[in-house]
């Protein structure tokens, strides 16, 4: 909390610096000095920003670094103190005592469970106070040095605006780099854990094995239950087959109806309905699938003779997922149909074709790349969908094409392996990252292809 208070103090001082710089620059305008040169290069507020940024940025940067560095320094100082001489050697017990003593010294904890930590509290308090003062002093010193330096450079012909704007541009660039850094971060973190996983389980077993029931301990040979083929199949079956059988016809027909047949008034009512359908959280769809759709599907299956139908069947999850995807396909198809030049449509109608013939023979073929791109994005969305399958599909991985059987997907297993008590070095947790990497790569590929297709097609008619 002391760090937060210091941060606000620095920001408050920064405001004072801004006002000072601005006032100083305003004086130039009235001053003889500026009349002599004829003008002041920048507006007064830029001088204010120049001074404030020079003062605040080094101080805040130091504060952030200090926040990371100082705990280590504090611990070292405590360990060097005589009170720490009696600490046990073992890494684990020692760390527990130290963290407890620190918590008491900071006032987060009232009393100690371990007697040794009580003894360390005074040493900790002293070390914390020591380094807090150092941090405070250095921050203020950096602030003053920066402010004085900038103040000494405030002159009528200082190009304050150029300098401040250069910093603004740097901030813009950094902001836009965050997306790239995130992508790299996802990739790096997944790769890192996946490599550790493949040191325990062979990639061949993972990619080509047909039985999935991950065990906590790894034995020799190829039967540790890390064969992910049933999961890949389950993911494709639910996301790319059942869901698409529902979503493609309904989404496409909705888009055709809305763009070609619906009156403007009906369209203005139906568009928001589809938007609401797209905005319903997946956890709600999942609950609906598990509570209402899955039992209905099972009853139906029993009625037509599948007596072994599971209550967590693939069909229920796929159906609800398909409905969730309808708005996505519909809006993508809507865009690409609207982008077909109206001359093509008018030409077809003028030749005597009916509306539906025009749509089937002219509009859809012309819009096909966009529609295909939309479908690829929809598939990528469906196979990465988590909550519906977690709540409605099963946890047991079956390699079957029976839609009434229980089927598991990649996302369900990631969720199952990573919730509950997790041992971060066990193969089960690491397997989740291998599955995550697979999922990331598949969706990445689908997205890239889809975006390419859509973009190329748009350029063709622009």
């Amino acid at each position, binding site marked *: 909390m002391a760090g937060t208070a210091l941060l606000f103090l620095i920001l408050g001082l920064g405001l004072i610096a801004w006002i000072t710089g601005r006032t100083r620059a305003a004086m130039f305008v009235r001053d003889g000095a500026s009349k002599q040169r004829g003008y002041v290069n920048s507006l007064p507020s830029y001088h204010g920003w120049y001074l404030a940024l020079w003062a605040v940025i080094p101080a805040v940067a130091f504060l952030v670094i200090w926040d990371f560095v100082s705990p280590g320094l504090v611990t070292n100082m405590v360990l060097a103190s005589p009170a720490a001489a009696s600490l046990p050697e073992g890494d684990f017990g020692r760390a527990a005592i130290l963290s407890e003593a620190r918590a008491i010294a900071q006032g987060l904890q009232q009393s100690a469970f371990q007697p040794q930590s009580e003894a360390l509290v005074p040493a900790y308090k002293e070390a914390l106070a020591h380094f807090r003062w150092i941090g405070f002093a250095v921050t203020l010193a950096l602030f003053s040095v920066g402010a004085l330096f900038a103040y000494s450079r405030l002159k009528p012909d200082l190009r304050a605006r150029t300098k401040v704007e250069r910093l603004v541009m740097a901030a813009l660039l950094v902001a836009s780099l965050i997306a790239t850094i995130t992508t790299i971060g996802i990739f790096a973190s997944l790769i890192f854990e996946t490599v550790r996983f493949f040191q325990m389980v062979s990639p061949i077993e993972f990619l080509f094995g047909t039985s999935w029931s991950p065990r906590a301990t790894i034995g020799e040979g190829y039967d540790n239950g890390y064969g992910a083929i049933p999961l890949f199949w389950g993911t494709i079956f639910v996301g790319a087959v059942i869901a698409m059988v529902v979503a493609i016809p309904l989404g496409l027909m909705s888009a055709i109806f809305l763009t070609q047949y619906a009156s403007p008034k009906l369209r203005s009512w139906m568009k928001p309905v589809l938007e609401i359908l797209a905005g319903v959280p997946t*956890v709600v769809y999942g609950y609906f699938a598990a509570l209402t759709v899955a039992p209905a599907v099972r009853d139906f299956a029993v009625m037509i003779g599948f007596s072994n139908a599971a209550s967590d069947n693939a069909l229920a999850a796929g159906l609800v997922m398909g409905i969730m995807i309808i708005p996505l396909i519909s809006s993508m198809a809507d865009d690409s149909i609207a982008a077909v030049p109206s001359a093509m449509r008018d030409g077809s109608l003028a030749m005597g074709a009916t509306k539906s013939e025009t749509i089937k023979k002219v509009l859809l073929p012309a819009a096909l790349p966009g529609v295909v791109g939309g479908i690829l994005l929809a598939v990528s969305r469906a196979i990465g969908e988590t909550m519906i399958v977690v709540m409605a599909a099963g946890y047991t991985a079956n390699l079957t094409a029976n839609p009434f059987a229980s089927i598991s997907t990649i996302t369900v297993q990631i969720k199952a392996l990573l919730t509950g008590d997790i041992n971060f070095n066990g193969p089960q947790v690491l397997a989740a990252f291998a599955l995550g990497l697979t999922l990331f790569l598949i969706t990445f590929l689908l997205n890239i292809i889809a975006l390419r297709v859509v973009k190329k097609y748009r350029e063709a008619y622009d």
Partner: protein
Amino acid sequence: MTNPSAPDNSAANNPAPTNWQSDAMQRRIAKRYSAEKRFKFMGYFAIGLSVLFLAFLLFTMVGKGFDGFRQTQIALNVDLPALSAGANADSLRGPNANATLQSMDLPGIVNMAAMRDYGNDAMSYLSANASVTLRNQLLDNPDMITQKSKIWLPAASPVDIAYKGKGSAEMEKAVARLAKDGNIKSSFNWNFLSASDATDPADVGIWGALKGSLLTLIVTLSMAFPVGVLAALYLEEYAPKNKFTDLIEVSINNLAAVPSIIFGLLGLVVFLTWFGMPRSSSLVGGLTLALMTMPVIVIAGRNAIKSVPPSIREAAMGIGASPVQVVFHHVLPLALPGILTGTIIGMARALGETAPLLMIGMVAFISSPPGGFTDAATALPVQIFLWSDEVNRGFVEKTSAAIIILLIFLLGMNALAIYLRNKFETRW
């Protein structure tokens, strides 16, 4: 251009014009028109099915969730003066009120009163929370202690379900007995809006989860909005056309389509393991969701910025504004309504997101609302997921009721976005 091809020849060979009145032609036309009708009907069918499904979904949730907002209460005749163990109204007003209440053994009083009024089974009729309710009533109105009075206390979940007509036969009988004497009633469940998670479905509330969601969204908004707007400005206004910019664009477009669970894995590895941030906290949840929301804001922001006409930029440039001044003084204010609309839609998506929060451990049983950004918290959709997993039947209506609250928030946010879009949309 002069191409002596098939049409010319066939026209020469078959000079008679098409007879449109012939039966064959009429049949063909009728067939084409019926195909047209069928196609149009399919369109109606597709859109109708979507509407029907949405209506069915909302209807199911409201139908099931309505009961979640009602709380069943049972009347108890409590002889407080006899059981007060020397406490009086003044001591309840004073600073030692808590100690006084402690010494009164309220759970014991409630149990005794229940057994005396309704027999030995009746201890289980009242919720574990009943003594807390009594305690709050006493604190609000200390004079209650001076007289024997009839007090309404919340019922336990089996009674609650039975009174709403879905309980076991045994409980239905008990409820019928209570109802005969007018000792059971149902009222609006304020507890559901003010309490947190609990083991008894009759006592649960969503305030803890809602507060967790709000804290998470505050973190998400304060990270994703500035970064998203700045990135959109850079890409739309300043970025040179080169490979490097292409890379940034590809990664933003791709991030917008990465499955949300992958962001959860990223949060787990980077924020929890590498940076050592507090597990289950709304800070980590907010950061994870910010990474997910940021591309949405960038894409919406770019569209809004693109729609500001170039003449505005040229005019500003023409009177001597610098490129940064052009953008921050003129383009950004004009694009802001569009950016805000996109931001609200992105935040609505973040509010409904569950999977990444499961990954970073926001799934714990948390019975008190989080006090700050680093406290263990849960979020509204995660709470729904947790309750949906419960075996106890009393949770069904609570899950649906929580879904209604979540949908109200989402619809409110989307309506705000649409309102902003319509109010500030400018056609240039």
